[in-house]
């Protein structure tokens, strides 16, 4: 029967072994994977501004992006392709807050440059290779 010492070895050995593999894969992902999958070279000043705004306004508190966030407002990974820049820009400062089907978005007060930044960020994320996400619907109405 397993002794306490063997159980401890199983825990420490297993954890160490899988941590090493995890670190190795992390390095490969950051060095080889990310530049290939995300268009790392296309991250302009505008994209960075957009991401700062995305974070500091907690857009993920309602929307999802890459499927991550809250489930109150639409998934935005492909919103640039779906709606185009003008539609996106129209939503931000809409008087009283953008309100599709009566669900309300916060009314923002972004400058033109900030709007460009958010659009640039959404365009950049839309061009990322996400291994097939979001899936194409089977029946398109």
């Amino acid at each position, binding site marked *: 029967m397993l002794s306490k010492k063997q159980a401890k070895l199983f825990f420490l050995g297993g954890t160490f072994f899988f941590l090493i593999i995890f670190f190795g894969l992390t390095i490969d992902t950051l060095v080889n994977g990310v530049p290939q999958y995300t268009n790392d070279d296309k991250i302009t000043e505008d994209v960075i501004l957009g991401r700062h705004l995305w974070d500091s306004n907690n857009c993920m508190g309602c929307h999802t992006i890459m499927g991550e966030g809250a489930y109150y407002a639409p998934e935005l990974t492909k919103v640039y392709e779906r709606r185009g820049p003008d539609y996106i820009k129209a939503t931000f400062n809409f008087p009283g807050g953008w309100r599709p089907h009566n669900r309300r978005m916060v009314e923002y007060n972004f400058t033109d440059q900030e709007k460009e930044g958010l659009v640039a960020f959404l365009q950049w994320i839309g061009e990322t290779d996400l291994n097939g996400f979001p899936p194409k*619907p089977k029946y398109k109405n």
Partner: protein
Amino acid sequence: MKFKSQKVAYYFFALSMLLFTLQIVYGFIMGFAHMGFDGLHDLVPFNAATATHKNLLVVWLLSGFMGAAYYIIPDESDTELFSVPLALVQFYSFAIVGVVAVIGFHIGWFEGRKFLEIPRPLDYLVAINVIVFLINIVLTIFKGKKHSTTSWVLTAGLIFVALLYLPGMVWFDNHTVDSFFRWWVVHLWVEGVWELVMGGILAYLLIKLTGVDREVIEKWLYVIIGLTFLSGILGTGHHYYFIGVPKYWLIIGGIFSALEPLAFLAMTLFAIKMYNKGNKKHPNKLALYWTLSTAIVAFLGAGLLGLAHTLPGVNLYTHGTLVTAMHGHLAFWGAYASIVLAIISYAMPLMTGRKIFDNNIGHLAFWLSNIGMIAMTAAFAAAGIAQVYLERITGLDFMVSQIEIQPHFFVLILAATLFSTGVALYIVNFIKFGLPNDEALTDGEEFKALQTN
């Protein structure tokens, strides 16, 4: 209760109860908003409510873990806490940082990364606070005469909780890299080191409640946390399927996250086995109920419901839908909320000297909250599955499908009412115990007949 300084735990437990209550209030705000009643939108927009709901959860659980450590470590090390004033300073600063963060969310002060919405300046304060806490705990262990496996596992868990907070404090221009490291914090917390903390508390409770030999319990504790890391570390991959990283994460994440339920299953079997094996029954039935329900519900919520949508082919459709909310609610409730409620149920009679171990309010609280949460999970499941079919299979517009699933939120709110009634009764019971006092001090052998080691 053997040592005066263990009373410090009460502050943390009380803070837990308060923040848990608030968390539920924000849950209701969101549930109603999903149903179309967003009357509070101007005061508490949805993104503020969700940040508050999630961060209150994290803070009240951490507060519960800290309280548990302040109660358990002196007992296990057989010595007074290193410093009570330091613990109190740490308590008040922890509470203040929490309150500032919550107020900040309401005026739009965010860092906007799911689960890590607390702004960067406050992150530093949290880090300092946790370091102070850890110093107090580690010095207590070194001061003590005994060094138990249980206390080391608990402390190691808490140390790694602090260390793993750090990758979440770095800015990356690339959103994919940011997400990659955000999961180092969130996943390796809840499916890694938090399970060390939970395992440590669970082992302590089983030793106390069942009277089974410490060596046996601690041996299986190693096996369980071994299985946790064996599956959980590479299981991080299930968050990397669709964030812009290589395809090998689909295979690795799929295989190892399919193994993750094993650790929870082992925990369930272990708790039930120990319960059956213990020939002497502790009078604190409520603590025993919560301890066993932790092990069982954690397996259902974290293990089975996690497995239900973790395989890449399934997750492609369920990722970013309410199916995730289904899994999240029962997992956090079973694994972490319940273990905190278990240790509070165990410690309160001993800290206050009010030896009411078993009462109707306590039992009602237990059953209503558990049944309520399972019903909530079912409502989320119905909403989530409907959303997947409408939006991802038939291609209906997001908002159109949201309107179709509104009725499920009515069911959710009914279930949540049941759940909240249970939690309210738990808190009533908590308050009725009164404050801890020195008269409750004993030689630590409250149930001599039970001590088999």
